[in-house]
C-alpha cells in the first residue's frame, strides 16, 4: 500500500509539473464557462442577455435540460473530450513510459522491493490519472451548470468519466507498449496517433458501408413499392384499354348491323397499341426490376465489405462507438426521435430520393445504436488486456 501510494503521489507530481495538464484544465473551464453563458428562451438561444432567434433551438421545441445535455454531448464530449482534450492527453502522457524505462531511471525503480508487473501496471494506471482528473473536473462543472442553469440535475453525466477514460486507455495501452519497446516518446506519440487515425478510418468505413447498404436497401424497398404502384397503374390502364376496345368493337358491330360482340379477350399487343402509356409503364417496371437486381448485388457486395470491417473492429478498440455510448446513456430513443422531429429531419416536403437517404441514415444509426455494449466495450477491453499482458510480459523479462 505504501508503495502504491508513493507511485500515486509521484504520478500527481508528474502531472502537476506538466504545463499541458493545466492548459487542458483551463480550456475545459473556459468551455464549461461558455456553456454557462449560453441559455434558451422562447425565441432561440441566449448569450448573456442577448437573444439569438433560432427556430430549431428554443423552449417551444425542447426543454432547457435537453438543450444543455445536447451541448454537453455535441461540444463537451464529442468535440472537446473525445478529440481536442484526448489529443492533448495523448501528447502529455506519451513520455510517461519511455521516461520510466529510460536508462538511469528504471534501474532505481526495479531495484526496489516491488514486483515488475505490479510496478508497470501501477505506472500505467497512474498514466490514466491525467484524463480521469480532466474528465472528472469537466463533468462536475458541467453537472453544476446543467443543474443550475437548466434545472436538470443529471448524475448520469458522470458516466463520461469511465467512458472517456476507457477510450483514452485504449490508446494509452498502445502508447505504453510502443514506449516500452522503443523507449522513445516521439515513436510512442506518432504510432499512437497513427493507430487512432486507423481506428477512425476503420470506423468511418464501417459506418459508411452500413449507411450505403441501408440506403440501398431503402432504395430497393422504395423501388419495390414503385413497381407495385406501376403494376397497379398498368392494370388500371389495361382495364381502361379493354373497355375502350370493347366499346369500339360494340360500336363497329352496331354500325355494321351485326349483333353486339361479347367482351373480347384482347392480347397485350392490342392493349398496348390502344394505349402507349402501358408500354411506357411496363418499360419502367422492367428497368426498375433491373435496378433492384443491381442494387441487391451491390448490397451483397457492400455487406461483404462491412462484415470485413466489423470483424476487424471486433479485435480492435472501438473509440468512436464507446464515446457514443454516452449518448445512449444520456439521451433516450424518444429524446433522439424528438430532436430529429424538432430539428426538421422529418420527411415532409422531401422528395423520394431525399427520403431514401434519410431513411438509410436512420437505419444505419439504428444498427449502430443496437450494437451491444458488451461487444463495444468488452472487445475493446479485451484488446487493451492483450496489449497490457504483452507489455507486462516484455517488461518482466527484459534486461535493463
Amino acid at each position, binding site marked *: 500500500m505504501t508503495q502504491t501510494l*508513493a507511485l500515486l503521489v509521484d504520478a500527481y507530481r508528474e502531472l502537476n509539473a506538466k504545463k499541458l495538464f493545466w492548459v487542458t484544465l483551463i480550456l475545459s473551464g473556459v468551455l464549461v464557462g461558455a456553456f454557462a453563458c449560453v441559455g434558451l428562451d422562447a425565441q432561440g438561444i441566449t448569450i448573456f442577455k442577448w437573444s439569438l432567434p433560432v427556430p430549431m433551438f428554443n423552449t417551444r421545441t425542447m426543454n432547457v435540460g435537453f438543450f444543455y445535455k445536447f451541448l454537453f454531448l455535441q461540444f463537451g464530449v464529442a468535440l472537446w473530450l473525445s478529440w481536442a482534450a484526448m489529443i492533448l492527453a495523448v501528447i502529455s502522457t506519451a513520455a510517461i513510459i519511455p521516461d520510466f524505462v529510460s536508462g538511469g531511471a528504471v534501474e532505481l525503480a526495479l531495484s*526496489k522491493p516491488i514486483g515488475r508487473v505490479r510496478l508497470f501496471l501501477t505506472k500505467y494506471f497512474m498514466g490514466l490519472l491525467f484524463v480521469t482528473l480532466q474528465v472528472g473536473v469537466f463533468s462536475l462543472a458541467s453537472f453544476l451548470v446543467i443543474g443550475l442553469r437548466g434545472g436538470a440535475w443529471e448524475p448520469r453525466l458522470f458516466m463520461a468519466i469511465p467512458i472517456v477514460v476507457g477510450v483514452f486507455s485504449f490508446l494509452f495501452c498502445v502508447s505504453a507498449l510502443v514506449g516500452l519497446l522503443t523507449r522513445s516518446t516521439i515513436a510512442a506519440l506518432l504510432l499512437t496517433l497513427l493507430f487512432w487515425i486507423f481506428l477512425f478510418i476503420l470506423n468511418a468505413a464501417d459506418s459508411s458501408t452500413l449507411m450505403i447498404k441501408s440506403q440501398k436497401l431503402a432504395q430497393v424497398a422504395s423501388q419495390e413499392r414503385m413497381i407495385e404502384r406501376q403494376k397497379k397503374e398498368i392494370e388500371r390502364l389495361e382495364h381502361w384499354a379493354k373497355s375502350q376496345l370493347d366499346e369500339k368493337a360494340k360500336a363497329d358491330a352496331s354500325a355494321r348491323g351485326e349483333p353486339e360482340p361479347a367482351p373480347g379477350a384482347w392480347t397485350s399487343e392490342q392493349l398496348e397499341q390502344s394505349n402507349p402509356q402501358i408500354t411506357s409503364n411496363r418499360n419502367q417496371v422492367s428497368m426498375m426490376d433491373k435496378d433492384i437486381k443491381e442494387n441487391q448485388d451491390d448490397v451483397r457486395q457492400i455487406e461483404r465489405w462491412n462484415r470485413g470491417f466489423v470483424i476487424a473492429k471486433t479485435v480492435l478498440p472501438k473509440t468512436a462507438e464507446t464515446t457514443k455510448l454516452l449518448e445512449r446513456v444520456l439521451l433516450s430513443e424518444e429524446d433522439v426521435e424528438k430532436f430529429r422531429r424538432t430539428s426538421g429531419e422529418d420527411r415532409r416536403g422531401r422528395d423520394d430520393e431525399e427520403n431514401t437517404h434519410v431513411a438509410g441514415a436512420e437505419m444505419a444509426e439504428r444498427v449502430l445504436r443496437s450494437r451491444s455494449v458488451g461487444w463495444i466495450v468488452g472487445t475493446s477491453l479485451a484488446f487493451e488486456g492483450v496489449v497490457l499482458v504483452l507489455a507486462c510480459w516484455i517488461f518482466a523479462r527484459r534486461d535493463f
Partner: protein
Amino acid sequence: MSAIPTTAVSSPAAFGGTSQGWAVDLADVAKTYKGRIQALRGVSMKVAMGEIFGLLGPNGAGKSTLVKILMTVISPSRAHGTVLGHPVGHKGTLARVGYLPEHHRFPDYLTGGQVLEFYAGLCGVGRADRKKRRGDLLELVGMTRWGDTRVKSYSKGMRQRIGIAQALMNDPDLVVLDEPTDGVDPVGRRDIRNILLEVKRRGKAVFLNSHLLSELEMVCDRVAILVQGVMASQGTIGELTEGRQRYEIELGADRAPIEVLREVSPELAAAGRLTTGEAIEHTPTMLRVATGDATRVQGLVDLFRGRGVVIHALRPVRPSLEDLFMQAVTDPTTGQILEPGAADNKKGGARAAAHVGGGVA
C-alpha cells in the same frame, strides 16, 4: 557531518539469514547477452557484513552487469548464492538494500527531498520514518538548503549526494554504490568516504563499484578485479600484494645503479638475482629487489657499503591498487593491455580472456 539515521525496523543485529555474516555470497554467476556476448563467465565472490568491498575492472568487464544482477535489474543466465541470506533475485530482500546506479536519473519534476521520499516509499518505508529520515539524510549529505529545489537544477555532484542519501533512506543492511564519487568535488568525496566508513562502523556492508582506484584503496577492506567477465583476483589489499613486495635501493653515485652493481658484483649483475634467488630489477635511478624480507637485501647493502657506495634510500614498497589493476588487465603473454569489453563468442573473445580465468585469489 551528522550520524546516519536509523529506523527501529532494521538494526545491525537483525541480519536475518546471514548467520555466516555474508552480505553477498555469489557462486558461478554467468550472463550471456543475445546468446553470444559473455558479460559474466562464472563469477564467484563474497562480501562480508561490516566491510567495504570494492569491485574494479576495465570498461565492459561486467561490473555493472554483476551489480544489476544483484539488484534484479538484469536476470542472470546462471547464478547461485545469496544476498543477505536470500537467493539472488528475491525481491523482498531489496527492502534491506540501498542502491545508487551509475548515470542515475531522477525525475526532473521532483525536489531532492521528494526524491528521497519517493524511493523510500517504493521500499515500503512508512510515512513518519520517511519524513524523519529525509531531514536527517539531507543534512548528512550536506543538501539541507537544496532539499526543496527541483533536481533538474542540481549539479552532478549534488545529484550524486542526493543519490547517496536515497540509497540510505531505507536504512539498508547492504549498500550498493556504482561510481558514487563520479562528478563529486574533493570535499564531497571526503564526505562520501566518511559516510561509507560510518555505514561500515554500524556493521553494514558496502559494495562499491568504481574506477577511482585511489578512492577505493582508501576505504575498501577487500577488493575484487573483474576482467572480461572473469574474476581475476579478490581479497584484502594485503592478500593481493603478498609476495609482490619490493625493496627499492637508491644510490648516491652519479652513474646508473646497475653500472655500480656491475662494478661491485659483476656476477649478481649478470644473473639479475641475489644468491638467494630474488630478482633484481633496475631503473635509471634505483634497484628493485623482489622480496618483502628485509634480511634478504642486507647482503647487497653490505656489498655497496663495503665499496664505499653511499646509499641514499632503502625502502620497502608495496604495489598500489593501480599496479594490481594494471597487472590484471595486461595480457602476460604479449604484455599488451587487454581490449576493453565483454567476451564475444563470435570474435574469439573467450580465448582472449582465458588467461584471467584461474586468477581468483
